[in-house]
């Protein structure tokens, strides 16, 4: 029975030593406090501060580039002939639809029976028509004043004619009286 209650043997593999644990990890998170993730922690998590050695160009490419040789020059075959390449009609660009912002836009456009006027010009025309309308109202008022003036003029002219007639009658009477005898 000695093998049952004998001296305890120590294990050959060393057990890991317990390290101190921060108490804060055991606490419940406070619902009122906002979790703030600082940029430093994000950088550490992403590995931003690590050098980007893997993305750099390998230095072995340079010798490869040096090894490539230039091809030998082609023999000269006289002047180069210019070949006119004709663009097919379907692929030609319609220059009417190309935007030319530097050119002035016309104030009017006529397309068959339809006529278009630029909005600024349209507003200008409406303003001018409004002014013409005001001028016509003014002319109408002047015309009424002239009619009234003509009426008064005619009235005065009639009075003057009556006065001259009366004067003439009186003169005739005086003439008669003086040369009676």
């Amino acid at each position, binding site marked *: 029975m000695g093998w049952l209650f004998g001296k305890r043997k120590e294990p050959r593999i060393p057990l890991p030593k317990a390290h101190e644990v921060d108490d804060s990890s055991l606490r419940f998170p406070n619902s009122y406090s906002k979790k703030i993730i600082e940029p430093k922690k994000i950088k550490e998590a992403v590995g931003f501060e690590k050098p980007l050695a893997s993305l750099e160009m390998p230095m072995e490419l340079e010798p490869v580039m040096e090894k490539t040789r230039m091809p030998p020059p082609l023999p000269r075959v006289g002047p180069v002939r210019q070949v006119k390449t004709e663009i097919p009609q379907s692929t030609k660009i319609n220059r009417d639809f190309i935007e030319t*912002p530097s050119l002035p*836009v016309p104030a009017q*456009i006529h397309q068959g029976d*339809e*006529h*278009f*006027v*630029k*909005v600024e010009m*349209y507003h200008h025309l409406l303003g001018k028509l409004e002014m013409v309308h005001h001028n016509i109202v003014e002319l109408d008022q002047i015309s009424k004043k002239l009619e009234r003036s003509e009426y008064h003029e005619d009235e005065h002219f009639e009075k003057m004619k009556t006065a001259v007639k009366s*004067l003439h009658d009186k*003169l005739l009477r*005086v003439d008669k009286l003086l040369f009676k005898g």
Partner: protein
Amino acid sequence: MEKMPVFVKIEEYNDVLSLMRTIRKKLDEAKGTLLKIHDLKNEEDHQLEMWQNTLAEVEKKIDFVDHSLNEPQNY
């Protein structure tokens, strides 16, 4: 972005042009009539001036007759 031009479609454009021609004719007629009225007014003013001169002449003669009748010793 550059400002794109906006156009307004004008309905009955030819009628508008025809009306504009008629308005221009009427305007020319009105200008001619105003010139005639101006000439008539000048003529009227001239006639009125003549009338005024004649009335002044008549007044002088009446004065003469009146003085002659009232003060015959002076003549």
